[in-house]
């Protein structure tokens, strides 16, 4: 399974926000629940627009939801 180098804390933020379900988050940001599952498992890197929408739902800055893991060469 290919893992993206963009990590996220969506799962943790969902639980911190009154144990929000994946379905509730999906409905609020306008995607399917499968996409939320794929993002939580780092199998999909969202578009910038979707990333901002997710951050807005949790009311935190983008960098608190997503982090980027650079290559060893570019470190």
């Amino acid at each position, binding site marked *: 399974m290919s893992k993206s180098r963009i990590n996220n804390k969506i799962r943790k933020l969902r639980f911190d926000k009154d144990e929000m379900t994946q379905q509730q988050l999906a409905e609020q940001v306008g995607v*399917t629940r499968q996409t939320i599952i794929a993002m939580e498992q780092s199998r999909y890197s969202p578009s910038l627009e979707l990333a901002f929408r997710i951050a807005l739902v949790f009311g935190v800055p983008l960098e608190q939801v997503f982090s980027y893991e650079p290559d060893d060469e570019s470190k």
Partner: protein
Amino acid sequence: MSFQQKNIAVSLASFTLILGFFLFRVVQMTLNDSFISTSVFWLWGITIGLGIVVTIIGTILTHIVSTIIEAIQTGNKDPKVEDFEDERDQLIDLKGTKVAYLVFSIGTFLSMLTFVFDQPPLVMFTLLISFGLVAQIVGDISRLVLYRRGF
């Protein structure tokens, strides 16, 4: 499994059966020495028609079955099936289409090669339709792989 994945799986199964039917009939015609324009045109028509009808009926049936399953699982009398395409579905569809076009391009080139071996246009177009079906199948497989593996 999401609605989109089920739809792709149904399409994959249908087009595999159509390709099987097409190749079976082509082999049968070749063995019976009836590989002539009238019977081959009939076969092309049937194959293309089947492809269109099966795609439409497959989508409708997948929707109905998904709704019934959702109703049974949730106990909801008015279940909602997530049948809309979000950005991930659209991206996977685009990548699958790209793979299908690549396969079809190679198939078109190989079909053209039949002219080099002095084969009639009937053979070229039959190969072209076969590669069209193979391209659809490979595209569907790559879509399912992308859904499972991620990207």
